[in-house]
C-alpha cells in the first residue's frame, strides 16, 4: 500500500427477484407468506417473502426466530399444517438437481 495506488473496487451483489406469494411448486404444493415451515436443521420458521435467483431458482426468506432470517431452497422446507395445529410436517419432494 505504499505505491500511492488508490484501490477502487466494484462489489456487485445480485439481489433476488422478490416474488409475491402464494407460490405453487411443480408438485402442486402451495406456500404463502406467513406460512409456518420446518427445516431439518433450523427447526420451525415463518415465511416472510419469496425470492428467485437466476442460478438457484425459488427460495423462501424464512424467519427462524433465534437463528435469524435465512434464504432457504423452498423444496427443502416442510409446511406445517396450521389448521390442525398439530405441527404435522407434510412431505415435500425436493426438485431434481
Amino acid at each position, binding site marked *: 500500500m505504499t505505491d500511492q495506488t488508490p*484501490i477502487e*473496487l466494484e462489489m456487485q451483489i445480485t*439481489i433476488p427477484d422478490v416474488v409475491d406469494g402464494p407460490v405453487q411448486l411443480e408438485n402442486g404444493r402451495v406456500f404463502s407468506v406467513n406460512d409456518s415451515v420446518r427445516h431439518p436443521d433450523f427447526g420451525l420458521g415463518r415465511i416472510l417473502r419469496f425470492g428467485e435467483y437466476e442460478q438457484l431458482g425459488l427460495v423462501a426468506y424464512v424467519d427462524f426466530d433465534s437463528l435469524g432470517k435465512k434464504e432457504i431452497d423452498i423444496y427443502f422446507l416442510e409446511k406445517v399444517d396450521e389448521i390442525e395445529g398439530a405441527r404435522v410436517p407434510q412431505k415435500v419432494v425436493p426438485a431434481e438437481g
Partner: protein
Amino acid sequence: MSELEKQEGDRGIVRSPESKAMQAQDAQAARVAGASEVKAAQDSNPNRHNGGAGGDQNQSIEIVSLKESGGFDLIASRLKGQGPQNELPATESKAKTEPLTVDFLKEKARQGDIWAKSFMPEIEGAERIPAGPTRDLLVDHVLKKAEVVFRPEDRRKAEPALENQNDTGTIIAARAEQNKAVEAVKAHHDWASKLEPGPEKDKHKQLAREQLVQLEPQAKGDLERLDQKRKWMAEQENAGTHDIRELRKRHLEGHVEHWENPWQAFTKLTPDQQRDIIRAFEKAGKVGQEGYEQKIQQVAESVPRAFYNVGKAVYDSGIAAATFVIESAQRPEKVPEAARNLAGALSESIANGARISQFVAGQAQEMAKTGDYSPVAEGLKTIAETANDRWEAMPLEKRTEKASELIAEMGLGSIIGAADRLAKSGKLIDALEDIAKHLKDLTAPGRDKAKQAIGAFLDDVFQPKGVTTNGFEMPIPKQQRDLDDLVMLRNKGLPDHVKPSERVTVKESFTAQREVKVTIDVPKEVLKAAEIRGIAPEVFQEKLQKIAESVKQVAYEVGNYDPKNHGSERVYGTKFHEALREALNQRNDPLIHTEVSYAKQTVQNWGKLGTSRVDIAIGEKEKPIAIICLKTLKALPSAQQERGWFNNIPRFPDGSVIPRLYLKVQERQ
C-alpha cells in the same frame, strides 16, 4: 262555440290586447334572450336609472296611492312584485341558477369572452369524439372547470355532490328516492358494502348494479360515467399526475402549464413565490454537501416539477456567487477557483435562458420589504454588481474587443450589432442574457460551445487582476494545483491508475442445508489493507459477508423497484440506504459503521458542512480499512463523492488512500 265561450273569448281579448304582439318573432327572441343581451338592452336605455340620485334601479318604477292624511301607500313596485328574486334582474338570476352548458360557453366565446374562448379547444376536442361516456366525461370535465370561472358560488355548493358521484351507493340512493322499487336494490348494495373485501362482496355489488339498471335504465349512464371517471383517475395516478383540483391548490403549477420555457415561467412568478422555491434548496443545502445530494430529492417533491431544474440552477449559481464573495473577503488565494466555479454556474444558467438579473431585482425589493434575507439572492445581487463594475471599469476599446471575441466564439457572428451593444452596456449580466436568447437558434453542440464561451468570458471578468510594474493590467497567475487536484481532472477526478473495473466477486450457492450462501472473493490488495490496520483478513472478509447478508435482507424488505410503489429510482435508493443503515446498526458490530462523516481525514459530526459522508466504513471509525459506497439500480458515484473520498477520508499512515468499494446492488435482469 257557445254564447258563454264567445263572451269569455271576447273578455279574453279585452283583457289581453297585447297578446298578439307577444307572439311576434322579436318578442319570442326577447323572451329567450341571455343575461348579457338584457344587460346590453338596459344599458342602451337613455332614461335608465343611473344611480346618481341614490336608491335602487328596481325602485325607479312604483305605483303609489296618495293618502289624504299625507304620505302614500305602495301599491306595486318592481321590488314588491318580485319578492326575494328582486336582488338580481330576472334574466341574470335565471342565468345564475341554470346549469352551465356547452352552448352557454360557445355563446360567451362568440361574444368575445376570453375565458370562454380558452375552453373552446377542449370542447371542440371532446366533440370530435363519438357520442358516449368518454365524450360526456370530457365535456363534464371542461364544464366543471368553467364553473370555477362562471359559477364560483354554484361550484362551492356543488362540490360535495360532485364528490359523491364517485360512489355507486350514492347513485343507487338517489334513484331510490325517486323510485321506491329501487329501495330493495339499495338495501342489497348497503348489505354488500359491509361484507369483507373479496369476491363475494364484489359479486353482490355487481348484482346490485345490474338490478339498478333493470329497474332504472337511465342509471346505466351514471354508472358508466362513474366507471369511466374511475378509470380515468386511475390512469392519471399511473401517469404520475394528479387530480386537477389538487393542482389548483398548488398555484405555482398553473404558470408552468402555459409557458414553454421553465425559466420564462420562473421569471413570471412573484418574488415571494421565487423565494419559496429557492428557500427549499437553501434548506437542503444546510445539511452539507453529501446531505444535499440526498435531501435534494425531497426538494424535488416539495417544489413544482417544472421549477426543479430552474430552482437548482439559481441555487447553484447563488451558492457559487456567495462563495466567491466570501472568498474574496477572507481567502484571496481561493478566489481564482471560486471565480471559475461562479463563471461555470452562471454560464450554465444564462445559456439555459435564465433571467438572473430579473430574479435579483425582484428579490432585492422583496428582501427590502420583508427583511427576509436570502444568501442566494444576496450573492447573485453582489456578483451582478461586481460584474457591472468590472465591465464598466474597462476602456470601451477593450470591452468592444472582448465582446467581439465572445460573439464570434458563441457562433452568433451574424447578429448585427450584438458585440457593440454588449460593449456599451453598463449591465453585463443583462446584456449576456439578451444575447443568450439567440442560442435557441443553434444546434445542441453549438449551444454547448456558446455556453463554454460565456463561461470563459465571465471567468475573465471575475478573475482577480493585478497591475504590472509598467502599468498593464494582468490576471494574477492561477495558484498551482496540488497533486490531488491535478489527478482529479481525469476520469471523474481520479488518477489514471485507479482501476474501477476491478471487482469483488460475489456468488450465491446453496449450503448442505440448502441455505443460500454468499461467497465473496476479495482481492489480495484489499486484504493487505486490513493487515495495515492490524485486522486479520478473515475478520475483514467476515464483515463484508455481514454487509452482503444485510443487503439481501433489505432487498426482501424493500422489494423490487417498482415506480408505482417507490416513485423515482432515487427515492428507492434513499429507502434502500436507510433500510441498510438500520439493518447494519442492528448488528451492532464494532467494526461496521454507517453514515460516517469525514473531513480532512478526521471524523466529523454527522452532516457537517464540507464533510464527506460514507455509507459504510469498515474497521475502526477513525482508521477505516475501507469505505463502501452503496449504489442501487443505475446510480453512479458523483465526481463530488470521488473528490470527497480522495481528500477527506482518513488515509493509511504512509499517506496512501484507503480502498473504496462500490456496493452495486443489481436487480435480476
